């Protein structure tokens, strides 16, 4: 295998693994802010207890997010050196902004959020929680801006200018920073990613709360958490319909090859339908077993079922993304979005009817529901990133030309093996600790008030 293929496998694997965690922290951040605001407003200790519990879960996920995030940043240089040189002048400022405005905010104030309850006042503590939640969102903002530039760099003279074109030293230079931040797709994609992250965090809370409700444990805590998370999940699901539509329009306008791959639409210039499911047959350039609404895509984009949509045939073979992967991941993501909407609506409906708390069959579904937004986030990114292929910066630099020439395939095989081993260990760690924290449950505020800061010595056999 070539360095380019191996580097893609490694980046894809490490990114997928990393991206299991940040959406959960972004969503949990919002929920912690709501819970702690309720604590400040009502003074009800149950809200404080809930905030404390979710902060512990947040910290665990954040720690794994940091541990898996460092390899992401390193790989731009280690595996994609030519890409880094090509895009550094433009891309750099977004990464620098992420470091300065997001990472420190999140990691610094997390210490206060976790360990600072006794050391700072209530309002200061709330500000720390707010800072942590904002930090995780800022991080998403800058990284989505950077990624969106790779998807839709825009016209020369807006965000970038190409210099030394045609030579090995060809690279981009920054022209307008504002055009980088507000590039053709950044705001649509950012809103879509944030909604998906809110859904992930909300369904994590819903899953754990449902588990406690089934087991009849920590009922007050579970109800508070469930209610808060259901509202967030419902609003985010509603928002997702709007942002998904915005994103699709943006893709249609600026990345027509990707849109064509989403729907397996081959004919260069013809009305397009919207599939519900199907199987792309690239050899015959069609979709088999296609369950589609004819003309629907044309209507969604242009308000006319007969409006032509650019198809894959309009692109040279070497400029087409692999349609099957893009088609399947995209449709699975959309299907998951619909199910999440339905679950949130049912949850709120049963809550309104007052039957949610004892409806065991529904709670059982909710226990595993967190898998759905996690899968949706992964699938959405697959369709976005694979849909951009064969480009690493759309229309400007091919993925195969971005790879490092100083690194031999054997070295990448070695690092792939290392990442695989470490990530298996991290997965084990994550589930072990998560299970540990969920089994322990939220701390009882009364018992804690009676015995503040008890040294945790009962495990220390060696100490005696």
């Amino acid at each position, binding site marked *: 295998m070539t360095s380019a293929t191996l580097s893609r496998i490694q980046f894809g694997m490490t990114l997928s693994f990393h991206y299991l965690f940040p959406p959960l922290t972004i969503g949990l951040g919002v929920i912690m802010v709501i819970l702690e605001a309720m604590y400040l407003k009502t003074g009800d200790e149950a809200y404080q207890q809930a905030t404390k519990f979710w902060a512990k879960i947040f910290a665990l996920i*954040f720690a794994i997010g*940091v*541990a898996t995030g*460092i*390899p992401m*940043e*390193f790989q*731009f*240089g*280690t*595996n994609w*050196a030519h890409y*880094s*040189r090509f895009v*550094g*002048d*433009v*891309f*750099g*400022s977004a*990464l*620098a*902004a992420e*470091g*300065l405005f997001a*990472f420190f*905010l999140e*990691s*610094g*104030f*997390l*210490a206060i959020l*976790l*360990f*600072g309850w006794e050391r*700072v006042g209530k309002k200061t503590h709330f500000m720390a929680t707010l800072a942590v939640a904002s930090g995780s969102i800022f991080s998403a903002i800058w990284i989505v801006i950077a990624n969106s530039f790779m998807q839709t760099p825009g016209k020369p003279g807006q965000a970038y200018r190409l210099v030394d074109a045609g030579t090995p030293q060809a690279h981009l*230079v920054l*022209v307008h920073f504002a055009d980088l931040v507000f590039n053709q797709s950044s705001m649509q994609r950012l809103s879509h990613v944030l909604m998906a992250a809110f859904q992930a965090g909300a369904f994590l809370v819903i899953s754990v709360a449902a588990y406690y409700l089934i087991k009849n444990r920590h009922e007050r805590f579970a109800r508070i958490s469930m209610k808060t998370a259901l509202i967030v999940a419902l609003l985010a699901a509603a928002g997702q319909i709007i942002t998904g539509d915005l994103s699709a329009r943006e893709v249609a306008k600026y990345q027509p090859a990707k849109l064509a791959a989403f729907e397996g639409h081959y004919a260069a210039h013809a009305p397009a339908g919207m599939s519900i499911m199907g199987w792309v047959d690239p050899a015959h350039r069609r979709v088999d077993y296609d369950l589609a609404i004819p003309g629907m895509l044309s209507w969604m984009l242009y308000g006319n079922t007969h409006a032509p949509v650019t198809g894959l045939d309009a692109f040279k073979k070497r400029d087409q993304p692999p349609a099957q992967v893009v088609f399947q991941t995209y449709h699975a993501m959309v299907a998951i979005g619909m199910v999440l909407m339905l679950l949130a609506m049912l949850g709120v409906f049963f809550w309104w009817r007052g039957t949610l708390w004892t409806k065991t069959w529904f709670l059982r579904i909710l226990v595993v529901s967190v898998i759905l937004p996690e899968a949706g986030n992964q699938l959405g990114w697959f369709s976005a990133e694979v849909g951009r292929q064969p480009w690493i910066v759309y229309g400007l630099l091919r993925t195969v030309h971005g790879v*490092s*020439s*100083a*690194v031999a395939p054997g*070295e990448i095989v*070695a690092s792939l093996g*290392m990442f695989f081993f*470490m990530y298996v260990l991290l997965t084990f*760690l994550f589930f*072990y600790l998560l299970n*540990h924290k969920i089994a322990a449950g939220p701390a009882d505020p009364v018992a*804690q008030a009676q015995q503040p*800061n*008890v*040294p*945790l*010595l009962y*495990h*220390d*056999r*060696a*100490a005696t």
Partner: protein
Amino acid sequence: MPVRRAREASLLQVIWFILVGMLFTGYAILDGFDLGVGMLHMLGKTDLDRRLMLNSIGPIWDGNEVWLVTAGGALFAAFPGVYASMFSGFYLPLMMLLTFLILRAVSIEFRSKQPQKAWRLAWDIGFSLGSLGAALILGIAVGNLTMGLHLNARHDYTGGLLDLLHPYALLVGITTVALFLMHGSIYLVMKTEGDLRQRIEPWVNRAIIFFIMCVAATTMATLLYIPYVGRHFRAHPWMFVFALANMLAIANIPRAMHLKKEFQAFMSSCFSIVMLMCLLAGGIFPYMMISRPRVNSLTVFNAANTPHALSIMLILAIIGIPLVASYTFAIYWIFRGKTRLDITSY
């Protein structure tokens, strides 16, 4: 007008060289004591000792590692050429560094979760080994950057892994380990009390002696084998201030320890790291990756981004850095004082 432009451009490039240097210095100071505590961890006799030592960095080690991410990001942002050549050139060592850092993080999280002796011992070893390995690789990287590497006309590294393990680079690696041992032991004295503190105090002196021996050897080796590093010092003798200040700072550590002013000793150790980084930067400037042949080197001036990009990032930095500095200080202030174990500890 073009002359003024060029001067502004090179000023921006130098400013960013200093800013990136500051971020790496911040990382060395903060993760330096973290890694030092990790390396010293196995010297703790009882389980309680080890937990106290581990929890002395409990609330902050994660945040300290963020400095590495930001420093790497800033290097990418300001000098993408250096970032690309350095990271792809140091491929396997950096992958090892990642392994050690992840192993360390996993060990910290796992260690105190089960009571069995073997379980805790295994993660104690992971924590120590991860810390030692990370410190050693960081030092070896610095050694290679000082010594120079084989780069081709596209600035891609053409040497192999064994070239990176040159004796000089290994010497700098060991010096870095010694520095972090000293830094970490002082931090531990500052954060512990009673019996444990008394047992840690002698480690400080041993670490200082080890460190001074390493520094002397590294200095001699540098002057003998890498003479280009001395050229600015010969041309501008005032730069010896850095070396002098470094010696005074190190000399002050035993004095301050003896007077039980461990915070002052820790500050001296931090200051010593700053001076060492100044010596390094002053020695290699304007080279960021010096090459054999010299003509393929990456310098502050040929590897930097355009002045326009640098000036936009400078605005971001002027807004961001005071914010980061002020709340980092506030957080350390809130968590000042001796480490005690409670329900939230590792």
